[in-house]
Structures are given as structure tokens and as C-alpha cells.
């Protein structure tokens, strides 16, 4: 080492909770809280209650469902957009797409409530909390994989610095909390999409949904380009694919089990569409002037 001057005093460490310990605390708290909600909810309803009879499908419900699905698409996809070269970045997307989408979802829920659309409001509420809670199950596996060196990065911590545009400065307690909130919101969005699309179905529908999310994650820019793991994480090593696969299957299973118990009405988006069009058709036929006999 050139031009080194001798040290007259050695460096000291100040006894306080380190940033890393705080970060670990944040992730453990989020995970424990969410896993606790999953466990509590499953204990509360050990088996799925009888489904409620669906109310008549209306155009307004269909439109509001489409609005809810749009909101659910914003959360996860802003990350895909932000990490795709040439497209807007996370701070901008968080401010002008994510934040308005939250307001829009609240509007959808309020309008649904005012119109007495219990099927829709139940699906929105159940989808959000069930999806967010199931993310805790995913995190229990993801974090284990990360600390065993099987994941390329601690993604929620990265989300925080991306949203706050402070990558060079690294994460703080605040950015970690924000990153985890975003991470759980993404889980909630996937839950919302699931309940709005599928309604009440058997629990393994959630596992299928988890596998679809897994495939989506493994072939889109956040993993493939930004983390440079290649398609299905194969450039990084099999540990990533295995960890991520198990985590998403577990997420899907938790989501499916909870949705089966807390989504009240059967019938997915196609059933809603079919019923709306049938109703419109029968009304049109009924209103058509009958020929004089």
C-alpha cells in the first residue's frame, strides 16, 4: 500500500443495533405477522364453509371487476416496466401509477359497496388480505433460500431502494419497510387477481396460480435482465429455481386454502361474463315488441 501513514489509534465499533440486524428484524416481523395471519385464518375456518348463492350478475359489477383487475395488474407490473431498458423508472411509476392505482381500487370498492355488490366487495377484500398473508409463507422459504446463498438478492430490500431512488446509498430501515410493503402489496395484487378471476374454487387452483406467477417471474426482466440470472434462473444455478419454485407453490397453496374459505361465492370471471350477457339477451328478447296475432 503506497504512502501509508502509521495508525495511532485503532478503529472502534459503537455498540448499537446494526443496519443488518434491523433489516433482519423487519423481514422477520413481516414474515411472522403474515404467517401468523395465515395460521390464524386457517384455524378459524378449519374447513371451507358452504358457498353463498351468487347474486344476479350486472354490467356494473363486470365493469368494476375489470377495474379491480387493472389495479391488480399495476402493482407487480411496474417492477417489470421499471427494470426493462428504455422504460420509465420505479420512482416515477410508484408516484404516477402505483399510488393512483391504490386510490382507484378504493373507489372501486366504495362504488361496489354502495351498489350492494357483495360478491365483488368480498372478492376485493379477501383477495387482498389473503394474497398479502400468503406472501409471508413465500417469504419464509425465500428468506431461507437467500440466507443459504440460493437467491441472487434480497428483493424486497432492493424494491425499497429502487422506489426511493437511493441505490448508491443502499438500504435503510425506512427503505426496507417500504420495500416490504411493496413486496406484500404485490402478493396482495396476485391474490386480488386470483379471487376476481377464479372466484371460489378448490384450493389447488391457488397452486396452479402460484406456478403461473413463478413462470412469469422467471422469464421477465426483473430476474432475467436486472439480476442477470437468465431464463428460469439457470445462469445463477439450480438453487434459485428450486427455492423460487417451492416458495411460489407454497404461496399458491396458502392462497388457495384461504381463498377457498374466505371467498364467499363460486363462479369466476367467465361465469360473470356469461351471466351478464345472458341477462342482457333475455331482457332484449323480453322488451322486443311481440307481433300482433
Amino acid at each position, binding site marked *: 500500500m503506497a504512502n501509508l501513514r502509521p495508525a495511532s489509534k485503532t478503529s472502534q465499533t459503537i455498540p448499537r443495533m446494526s443496519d443488518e440486524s434491523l433489516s433482519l428484524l423487519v423481514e422477520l416481523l413481516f414474515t411472522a405477522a403474515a404467517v401468523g395471519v395465515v395460521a390464524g385464518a386457517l384455524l378459524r375456518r378449519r374447513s371451507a364453509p358452504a358457498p353463498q348463492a351468487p347474486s344476479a350478475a350486472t354490467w356494473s359489477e363486470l365493469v368494476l371487476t375489470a377495474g379491480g383487475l387493472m389495479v391488480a395488474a399495476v402493482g407487480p407490473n411496474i417492477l417489470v416496466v421499471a427494470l426493462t431498458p428504455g422504460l420509465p423508472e420505479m420512482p416515477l411509476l410508484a408516484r404516477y401509477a402505483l399510488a393512483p392505482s391504490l386510490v382507484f381500487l378504493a373507489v372501486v370498492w366504495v362504488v361496489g359497496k354502495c351498489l350492494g355488490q357483495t360478491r365483488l366487495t368480498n372478492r376485493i377484500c379477501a383477495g387482498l388480505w389473503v394474497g398479502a398473508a400468503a406472501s409471508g409463507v413465500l417469504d419464509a422459504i425465500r428468506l431461507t433460500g437467500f440466507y443459504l446463498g440460493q437467491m441472487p438478492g434480497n428483493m424486497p430490500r432492493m424494491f425499497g431502494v429502487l422506489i426511493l431512488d437511493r441505490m448508491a446509498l443502499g438500504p435503510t430501515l425506512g427503505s426496507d419497510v417500504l420495500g416490504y410493503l411493496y413486496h406484500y402489496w404485490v402478493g396482495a395484487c396476485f391474490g386480488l387477481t386470483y379471487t376476481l378471476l377464479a372466484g371460489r374454487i378448490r384450493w389447488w387452483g391457488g397452486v396452479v396460480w402460484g406456478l403461473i406467477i413463478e413462470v412469469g417471474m422467471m422469464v421477465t426482466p426483473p430476474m432475467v*435482465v436486472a439480476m442477470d440470472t437468465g431464463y428460469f434462473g439457470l445462469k445463477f444455478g439450480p438453487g434459485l429455481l428450486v427455492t423460487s419454485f417451492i416458495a411460489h407453490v407454497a404461496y399458491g397453496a396458502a392462497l388457495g386454502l384461504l381463498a377457498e374459505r374466505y371467498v364467499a361465492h363460486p363462479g369466476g370471471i367467465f361465469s360473470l361474463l356469461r351471466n351478464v350477457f345472458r341477462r342482457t339477451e333475455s331482457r332484449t328478447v323480453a322488451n322486443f315488441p311481440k307481433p300482433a296475432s
Partner: protein
Amino acid sequence: MKTTMMVLAVASLLGVSALTGTAQSGDANRVDKLSNKPFSDTLKAVEKTVKSEGMMVVAKIDHKKMLSMVGATIKGATTIEFGKPEMGKMLLPMNPAIGLEMPGKIFVYESADGRVVVSFRKVAPQYASYGDPEVKKAGEMMDMMADKITSAATR
């Protein structure tokens, strides 16, 4: 920030070199000074001195925190980029290619044996390579400032 992950990768490389705890031997322009203060105090002292010398901290890169997101644990390692707006205003219109050399950079890190080191690279030879006496003078001034800042911060 489109290439934030790229930044992370670069920082990782820098962090790995910091992990080794040794400066590149044979780099005659590299200056390493051992600090008499702990890492965080040294870092604060560098920032304070940069400001007190009428310069600006343009950017701060915390390699330790950045690497923590990808599961690597290293000791303190932070790059401070600093500059004088007046100098940029004077040099860049003259020859925009000089932008590659700016701003100045000071690296503060804890070596493997716990010593706190403040490093910078003398930029005068790079500045001189542009063949302009004014630019060369600016490079020498930058070196003088970096030396002053690092001396004050390590004292």
C-alpha cells in the same frame, strides 16, 4: 437509474477489491492514507472537509449497504465523489471529453485487519494527457485538494 443493477454489480466489484484490504501495487498514482479515526468518523470528516474546502459531495456510494442486498458482508467501504462546479463550468466547455475524469473520487474503507484507509488516485497525469496547460493545472489542483481533504480527514 435504469442501470441500477449494473451499478450494483460495479459496486460489488469495488467491494470485493475492498475486501482484499490491499491497494493495487504498482499503481504509482494511487495514494492510501491510514486514518486515525474509526470508519464512520473518517467518512464524516471527508465529507465535512470536502464542504469546508468549497467543494460539493456529488455522490456517495455505500458499497457495504449495497452488497448487503445481495447477501455479501463486508466492512465499511464508501466512495465519495466530489467536485467544484466552477471547475466543471470552466473545463467542460473547453473540452467535453474531460468529463470522463470528473468528478474527483475518494474511497474510504476498512481493510481486512480493521484499519481504516482513505484512498484516492492522482488525476493530474490523466488531465495532462488532454494536452492543455489549463486542464493540466486543474488536474494538479484536484490532486492538491484530494491530498488536503484526505490528510485532514485522517488526522
